């Protein structure tokens, strides 16, 4: 079954005054990651380094986001950073610049599969779609 999505984490970050899209994106990723503590590696007997962490950022100016800086926030795991047009820019009341809101979605996956030996066969009966 290869790359298997295990969880989605959602966060929001802002840059109130500096107009820094990367900073807003970094904060959105931090908000998403540090709200939850995920123990999939422990539960499934995998290594944390097996975790695939894909980051998706939405901001109004995607080109202004430094993907490497966003990726550096993550504690471990391989994966990519994708920046799309989204988030929200809110004009300041005095007309001088914008307040930036960034959305972050973090997808946690493992490249995993069912063992073909008998060890896990008993669970197949419980594999009912929710």
């Amino acid at each position, binding site marked *: 079954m290869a790359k298997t999505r295990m969880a989605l984490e959602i966060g929001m970050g802002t840059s109130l005054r500096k107009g820094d899209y990367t900073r807003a994106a970094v904060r959105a990723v931090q908000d998403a990651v540090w709200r939850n503590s995920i123990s999939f590696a422990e539960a499934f007997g995998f290594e944390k380094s097996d975790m695939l962490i894909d980051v998706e950022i939405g901001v109004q100016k995607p080109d202004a986001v430094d993907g490497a800086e966003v990726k550096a926030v993550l504690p471990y795991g391989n994966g990519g950073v994708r920046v799309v047009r989204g988030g929200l820019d809110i004009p300041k009341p005095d007309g001088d610049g914008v307040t930036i809101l960034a959305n972050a979605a973090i997808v946690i996956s493992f*490249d995993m599969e069912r*063992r073909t030996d008998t060890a896990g*066969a008993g*669970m197949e009966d419980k594999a009912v779609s*929710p």
Partner: protein
Amino acid sequence: MKRLILEMGTGTDLYGGDYTKAACRAVRDAIGHSSLSLFRSCGYNHRDMVVRVTIGVQDPDAVDAARVAESLPRGNPQVTVVHGGLNIEGDAQDTPTIIASAAVEAFLEVDAEGWAISGSADG
């Protein structure tokens, strides 16, 4: 039972002095920022999930734990209320501003020996 995730959140009741409302909002904040896709992806059933909720507020006795439990969509949650959270007293109103903390833990019986990382030596 293995713990899959700990979700954390805060909720407030700014003017009403309602600890249960703050607690329910904290739970909503905790569970609303993540989604456990593995039930669908790996063929597990939500009904096998066990959920434990811990609420922290300054007046634990004022929280209706049954109402907090009802605010969760599934997992037949067990709710514990402890002393925690934060109250902010102010001169301008009779009741304090209430902050509740919520920890929501999800547990599942995982057949770890039935899974392997693709391409690993023992997979």
